[in-house]
């Protein structure tokens, strides 16, 4: 019975993109392209985790988790609270060092991903509890997403050497583009700290997108956001993949949104992966239902409101 309800919710979502504010760029043909993309999933994965195990002082947060993310895919990782989703993302972005296993970014493997060079590897992420720079304006926040590209030293910046000016101009153009893309135009000069929560989430997304990352890690982007903002944000996430060509890994515990948005879903439950497949396969998977049944009533009421 519980599944039925979520299904309705999902259908509503699926219909949304059709009438939603479609961007000028060619998103119209999205439905046809998706099956083709699924076919070449066997191509080199953008991200692959093999046998990742992580313990915090005896408590096993992750138990031998494998995950592969194909280029251009919206890959979701869901699971109840405390399932290890955020730990997984922190392992991918190098904040935690796994006890065992490796993280493959494209063709390079890391025992621990060097966080400082994440941006250089084309990886960007957002944070669960919103890591924007309150003291900077929205535009400057977005500009910060390209910090790793600024090769000119501080002296060149002071003098305003040709190199410094060229890089600055390129960055500003890219920032303008993303500001327009995520409709942040009218708040661009305001200090990020003064914006409502939903808008701040969008600024963080813009900052992650501006460097046109090959891999975009989203840590519960829909947490604490109103329903209408959820729709808008999922719209932006889909556009991010389509017009910015980013492969997206989405960590979320709100099943409704995820089902409609992601190509494939992995389900974690207290540290281990219990299911991995398309939204339909996962929805039918008994292990997933049992895991969620345990917490189902709580999630459902939240959705029903």
């Amino acid at each position: 019975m519980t599944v039925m309800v979520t299904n309705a919710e999902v259908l509503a979502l699926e219909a949304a993109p059709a009438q939603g504010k479609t961007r000028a760029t060619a998103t119209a043909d999205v439905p046809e392209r998706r099956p083709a993309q699924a076919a070449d999933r066997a191509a080199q994965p953008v991200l692959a985790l093999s046998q990742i195990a992580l313990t915090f002082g005896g408590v096993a947060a992750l138990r031998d988790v494998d995950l592969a993310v194909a280029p251009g895919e919206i890959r979701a990782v869901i699971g109840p609270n405390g399932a290890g989703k955020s730990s997984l993302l922190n392992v991918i972005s190098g904040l935690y060092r796994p006890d065992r296993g490796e993280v493959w970014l494209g063709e390079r493997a890391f025992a621990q991903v060097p966080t400082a060079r994440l941006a250089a590897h084309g990886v960007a992420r957002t944070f669960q509890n919103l890591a924007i720079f309150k003291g900077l304006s929205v535009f400057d926040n977005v500009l910060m997403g390209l910090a790793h590209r600024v090769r000119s030293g501080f002296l060149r910046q002071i003098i305003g050497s040709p190199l410094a000016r060229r890089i600055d101009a390129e960055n500003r153009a890219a920032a303008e583009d993303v500001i327009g893309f995520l409709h942040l135009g009218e708040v661009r000069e305001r200090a990020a700290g003064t914006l409502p929560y939903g808008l701040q989430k969008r600024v963080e997304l813009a900052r992650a997108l501006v460097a046109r990352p090959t891999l975009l890690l989203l840590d519960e982007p829909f947490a604490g956001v109103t329903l209408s903002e959820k729709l808008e944000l999922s719209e932006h996430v889909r556009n991010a993949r389509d017009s910015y060509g980013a492969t997206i890994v989405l960590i979320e515990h709100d099943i409704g949104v995820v089902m409609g948005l992601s190509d494939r879903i992995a389900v974690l439950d207290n540290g281990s992966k219990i299911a991995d497949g398309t939204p339909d396969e996962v929805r039918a998977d008994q292990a997933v239902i049992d895991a969620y049944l345990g917490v189902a009533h709580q999630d459902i009421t939240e959705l029903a409101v």
Partner: protein
Amino acid sequence: MSAAPSTAQLLPGAGAFAITVGAAVAFGAVPLLGSDYLMDAVLTPFLALALAAVGLNLLTGYAGQVSLGSAAFLAVGAYATYNLHLRLPQLPLLVDLVLAGLIAAAIGIVFGLPSLRLRGFYLAVSTLAAQFFVQWALTKFGWFSNDNPSGVIDAPVLSVAGFTFTSPAERYVFSLSVVVVATVLTQRLLRAQSGRNFIAVRDHELAAKVIGVPLLRTKLLAFGASSFLIGIAGALWAFAYLRTVEPAGFNLDRSFQILFIIIIGGLASLRGAFLGAAFIVVFPLLLSRAGAALLGGVFDSGVLEMSQRIVVGVLIIAFLIAEPRGLIALWDRLWRAVARPAAIRNT
């Protein structure tokens, strides 16, 4: 500390106009009309402390690294300039100043290293190590003060390209030009990517790391640039203002004074540094002059001084309660209230 829109943005036209008028008054009217007292006892110290506050604001206001040892870098700047001038006489004074600033920057970077692991008051109190060490070293090793038995150094003559700055007005103009140039360069740095990196490191160090901001280089640049500015301010304080200096003049009270200036003036704002310096340097003098003039007969100078100290203390607390973001926020609010009708009219 959100960077409130500065006055210039409110009245774009007025900004440029205000700067030109300000420059005309500062460089022209004041030196010609102002009294020796005004320049030698009020404006020159104000400029030196304002430059030191600009330096500390860069480190504490923009980059979020609290430092209680800024007086040590004032001392390094003063003693380095003295020794460069003494031991390498062929170098022009301006080169001495820049080199002294670089020496102060180098020492600033060394004492900035703990900031990679320490935060908040642990970092602040560990910068005290710089304060006490530098003060001890300058008194202990006679070489720094040319083996003067008491460790006091006398100011070299301030001469640039043949022109000597001796009278209070000339020394004032010399300090003013150095401070204006240094502040403009600092502003360019803070408007560029490095400035944004500072604020990023202050507001969310982890996010800054993830998006590729070089934490080590950014923090050390903050310490280095801040100590560079404070070093030059120290040289101005010693040679344009006091013209003789002893290490005790750069004690902990001096560090606290500079911290007062940027907190009262307003963190992460260059104009805040100047406003704060005006409050901390000029206001007590005004208070003591007014006190002496009005109540001179009734109380002796001691009682006046103590009551004046209470008034300054109370005002500091009152300002912090009224506007935690400092005078600059009060000033901008005042300006916005005055300028709002004007702004509407000319947009």
